[in-house]
């Protein structure tokens, strides 16, 4: 999570800076901040991918049903293929239109070509397959984009000291990529743990409070509505702050920045 948080911030900062450069409201600091964001992202993303791989191995050991749902592996098999994309169908117990890379799932999960991956049909209980399958693909897909964009950007910075227009656009499009990847990752973790709340010990159904459905759905929609409203407000505030033309160093009479705290000592 520490890595993911750093990565999220790095892309947010770099993305806003790239956007400011495209709009022509950048100042002397913008390029430095962009550089910091891109280099941070470029260094963190491989570490994040490595940590993700270790996390996957750990999950296979402790929560194998989650992994089976992530990969939509229905039958236990050796040398299991990795489904790039497809439509998991829980009723038919198969993945329709699956596009597979042979042996890849076994290789990723067990680090052996012929490693055995336990299928969903061999678990007494397993999580809903489609949401876990899709969240995992969103997370890894965005992660791959992060790798490509940050390394491409870092390469340009290294060679020429600046990003070209196309790269600026790509970086600014990635502004909120960390949010998307993190939330998708949480979905994999939390939905993938179901039907348990403590793996193998306590099921979610056993400990859920006995509130009427109306109470639960009312509060759920309340929270969701509130956060959607706050997110819109956040985006608007971010935009207002991002379009403000930057001060040049000469204009800024107080280079240490204005005091943020309102109370004098």
């Amino acid at each position: 999570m520490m890595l993911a948080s750093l990565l999220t911030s790095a892309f947010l900062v770099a993305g806003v800076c790239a956007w400011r450069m495209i709009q022509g409201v950048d100042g002397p600091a913008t390029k430095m901040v962009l550089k910091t964001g891109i280099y941070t992202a470029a260094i963190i993303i491989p570490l994040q991918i490595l940590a993700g791989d270790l996390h996957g191995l750990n999950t296979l050991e402790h929560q194998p049903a989650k992994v089976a749902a992530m990969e939509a592996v229905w039958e236990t098999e050796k040398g299991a293929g990795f489904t790039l994309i497809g439509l998991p169908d829980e009723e038919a117990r198969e993945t329709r239109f699956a596009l597979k890379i042979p042996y890849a799932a076994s290789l990723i999960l067990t680090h052996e070509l012929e490693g055995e991956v336990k299928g969903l049909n061999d678990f007494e209980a397993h999580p809903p397959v489609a949401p876990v399958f899709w969240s995992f693909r969103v997370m890894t897909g965005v992660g791959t984009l992060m790798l490509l964009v940050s390394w491409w950007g870092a390469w340009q910075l290294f060679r020429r000291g600046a990003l070209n227009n196309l790269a600026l656009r790509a970086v600014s499009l990635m502004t909120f990529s960390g949010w998307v990847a993190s939330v998708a990752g949480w979905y994999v973790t939390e939905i993938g743990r179901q039907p348990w709340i403590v793996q193998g010990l306590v099921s979610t159904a056993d400990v859920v409070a006995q509130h009427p459905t109306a109470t639960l759905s009312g509060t759920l929609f309340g929270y969701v509505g509130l956060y959607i409203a706050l997110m819109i407000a956040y985006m608007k505030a971010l935009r207002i702050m991002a379009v403000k033309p930057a001060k040049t160093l000469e204009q800024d009479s107080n280079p240490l920045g204005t005091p943020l705290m309102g109370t004098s000592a």
Partner: protein
Amino acid sequence: MSEALPLFFVSAMGLSLLLYVILDGFDLGVGMLLPFGSNSEKDVMIASIGPFWDANETWIVMGVGVLLIAFPKAHGIILTALYIPVTIMLVGLILRGAAFDFRVKSADHRQPMWNKLFALGSLMAAMAQGWMLGAYITGLTGSTMSLAFSLLISLTLPALYIMLGGAWLLIKTEGELFDKAAHWCRLALPAMAFALLLVSVATPLVSQDIADRWFKLPDAIGLLPIPMSCALAILGMNWMLRRPQVLHAGYGWFIFVALMVICLMAAIGLAYSIYPDIVIGRMTLWEAAAATESLQFIFWGAIVTLPAILGYTVYVHRVFSGKATELSYD
């Protein structure tokens, strides 16, 4: 050891919640008073709580956290019974936290809206906490009596917070806003005294056990300092709030101290009433406590965390002592 640990944790929880009421009480109170200040006064009011408010909220996280890890069974009963007021409180606190930043960072023409949401969030949190207090001390029964009582407390607890907020502004501000703060305190005092009286009357009515404890001799004599010091504090505040020259001479802090005395006495009184129950009439703290091994484990976390939070609270109040000026991000 197995006897001492639950006592340690219930004390830590009580201390956290007491500090929460005093500390977040003043910033919730300032939030509720916000609509009554002029535009420039609003900025000073917000600035006066700026460095403190989010640290103040850590105390309720600490209190509820201890309830969860040290008394999990009680946590289940209490938080399930209080699901709706807790949700309302959270929505209020979320709105407040967001409005705090957005009022200065989003578009200028939106500032009045965020100011209103800041005040609304503060009021929601204060009323929800009043409701929770009322429901808790009537034993979480959900009876008509208990609901009516919860409603009354939710209407009057905000008065305590408004008093705390006004008293805070007496410490932190000067000039016209200072005089307004004194006026707000004068208005809120009777409502707060009424709320205090209500809670004191209701608790013995709810349970015969509690009534016996308070009205049995000779214990009743030993308990007299509690109601007496509360009465003295209220009379003292009443006296001082009617004498602006005393307040202006630099004694405004007395109001805040008097309120702290009242909160402390109320906490001691409540603890005396319900000990050793943690859910009144249903569960003692011994029954609710987690396994001794678990308590031993989290004991080390608690003795590091508690002094750390206390330490930074004292530190931030020292760094930002004195009168507040306007808050700006430009």
